[in-house]
């Protein structure tokens, strides 16, 4: 769906580099997470896709076609710094933004009706934004972003400022849109939403892409062959023996249950065979790093 190739973007006449040789590939119908600390270059990249700014060099292709002004109508964008007109009625704003995206008034009205019913907010149409609560305004903001049926949806920190109820509601809508074929780019520094929602992810730090790929693959890549074990009815002799052969940490002993982590590269089946002799295996799992750990790891490795 979207391909970025060797994007370079600098500010202040080249003194500040925002993106350096940045390339990603966003597959059709996926949710793609852009992860990175503040100031890493995520917003710069998103603004380039939205044609708010231009890259110094490099190309972006949407469905194989070089990025051009016609694509704007096909993109829905919710920036991190977002808001609406306070003194305009909800209905007027929705129509205004839809018309700016090239929709006809009738088309926009019909689509708006669908969304207002879906989010159960159809009684707000004539209200001014200043009469609505923040949570209500957030729903309107989302409708504004998706009303023109974009094929590519770009959400910059979509959950910042949303209360948990609205965040969940919007999350469900995003997943719905994805299931209907919309490609979604989601920029965030909140890792848990990436784990829950994203199919693909790219980590950006200091204007460079550190790693990208399927979320599963990225986490796999950062795993360190650490396993968590819980045993009962431990035979002390055998355990001493076991401890000499394996690197063990985080050991705890509560209610006759012995838990610990171990690091080993011989493969889980071999470890299990040894554990069977030590005691009854209550649980055994490989510690796959969370996105948070991946992120911290990757960033510290990188810098």
């Amino acid at each position, binding site marked *: 769906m979207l391909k970025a190739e060797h994007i370079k973007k600098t*500010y*202040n*006449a080249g003194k500040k580099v925002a993106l350096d040789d940045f390339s990603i590939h966003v597959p059709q119908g996926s949710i793609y997470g852009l992860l990175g600390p503040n100031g890493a270059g995520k917003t710069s990249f998103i*603004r380039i896709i*939205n*044609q*708010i700014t231009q890259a110094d060099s490099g190309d972006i292709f949407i469905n194989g076609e070089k990025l051009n002004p016609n694509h*704007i109508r096909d*993109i829905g*964008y*919710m*920036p991190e*710094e*977002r*808001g*609406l*007109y*306070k*003194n*305009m009625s909800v209905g007027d704003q929705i129509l*205004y*933004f839809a*018309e*700016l*995206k090239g929709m006809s008034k009738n088309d926009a009205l019909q689509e708006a009706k669908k969304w207002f019913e879906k989010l159960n907010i159809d009684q707000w149409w004539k209200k001014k934004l200043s009469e609505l609560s923040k949570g209500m305004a957030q729903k309107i903001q989302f409708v*504004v*972003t998706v009303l023109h049926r974009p094929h590519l949806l770009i959400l910059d920190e979509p959950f910042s400022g949303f209360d948990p109820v609205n965040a969940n509601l919007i999350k469900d809508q995003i997943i719905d849109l994805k299931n209907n074929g919309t490609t979604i780019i989601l920029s965030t520094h909140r890792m848990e939403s990436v784990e829950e929602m994203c199919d693909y992810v790219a980590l950006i730090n200091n204007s460079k892409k550190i790693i990208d790929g399927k979320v599963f693959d990225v986490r796999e890549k950062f795993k360190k062959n650490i396993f968590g074990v819980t045993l009962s009815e431990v035979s002390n002799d055998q355990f001493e023996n076991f401890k000499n052969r394996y690197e063990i940490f985080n050991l705890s002993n509560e209610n006759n249950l012995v838990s610990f982590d171990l690091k080993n590269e011989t493969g889980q089946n071999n470890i299990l065979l040894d554990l069977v002799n030590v005691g009854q295996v209550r649980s055994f799992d490989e510690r796959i790093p969370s996105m948070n750990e991946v992120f911290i790891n990757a960033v510290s490795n990188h810098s």
Partner: protein
Amino acid sequence: MNNIFLITKREFLTQVKKKSFIILTLLAPILIIAFGAVIGLMFKANESHSVIEVVDKSGLFRDQFKSNDKLDYQFISAADEKAKVNNLKDNESLDGILILPELKNQNYDELESGSRLIVNSKIGLDTKQKIVSDISNVIKKEKIKQLGIQEVQLDDLDKSFTLKTINVSNDNKEDSDLAFGVKTGLSMILMYVTFMFIIIYGVRVMRSVLEEKNNRVVEIIISSVKPFELMMGKILGVTLVALTQFIIWITMSVIGALVLNTGFSSLQKNMPGGNEQVMNKLDIAQLATQISHSLLEMNFPLIIFVFIVFFLLGYIFYSSIYAAIGSAVDNETETQQFTLFAVLPLMLGMYGSFSLMNNPDGPLGFWLSIIPFTSPVAMIARIPFGVPAWQIALSIALLLGTTIFMIFLAGKIYRVGILMYGNKATLKELWKWIRG
């Protein structure tokens, strides 16, 4: 283009629908009229009617003194003098007694030293001056009579010299003093309207830019339209708001004038018209025809054309500066240091144009009306007096060029500025944005 139209439409509708706009538009003319009326009333309230009794022992003044609505002369006989002076303190209907002694041997110095004005309260400076000038006039006439000069001869001596001015560049038409006055008036009005329009509505553009920036709505819009389109749409939208306000005000004043006019003429008909009033009416009618005549004599298509061109170009020129300022700052208090740049050249143009009235074709007028920063007001101030075509053409070309350039510069600042938050822009930074 369609986007600019949509933005213009929104800008126009939201501003026009605002309660403050409706109230201000409807109330402003009423307020102005009320303000004028209050000032008029204040002047009226301070006017007094004085009654002065005159004891004229010389007999020279009796036929010469003329009362008017502010000062009433009443002649009394010399015999009553003493009693009147004694009672003056308690007499509320009388303001003073003027005593003019007998004239002996044509000794006017003695007359002067013997004259007294006895008053019972403070008498206005105006009244005193009128009395003094009335006395002086009579004495002057008397002295002239003694010299043996006829009054006709005197009038002839006083006759002012009228210098006919023939303007070769302007169809050999001469400018009477009245025509010059009419032109000055017109020129001041046009200039002032332009000046106020640019300041008031330029600031409105700036506010609207700031509002979008503060609402954080701006990034959503420029993901759909180009920043330049947004800026232009805004400027055009505010222009339409201003025109709407103008049209409403003009309609209101025309209706008001018509209503007042019928009221005025019926008032005059009903009044028992004294001789003087008929005279006044004639004068006013004559003056009105003369004024309208000099107005009609001017090249109106040219004046209107120049007014519209300079008005619009000047407005777009300055509001693009205002738009750039609005984008570069975070709140209205920070705008002040920058708005100076937008106001100062206009002020220069306007105050320069005041002195330009003395000599519309002088070098100051020429340069002010050619340099683009001041030309929107200065050329409009000059145009009723007639400006050579090549100067108009040069000035328009320069203004058009700089306006396009200014829109380009403002667009550059705007594009960067609207996405900058919490960053107090300095001039150095603005320069960077322009280059970047």
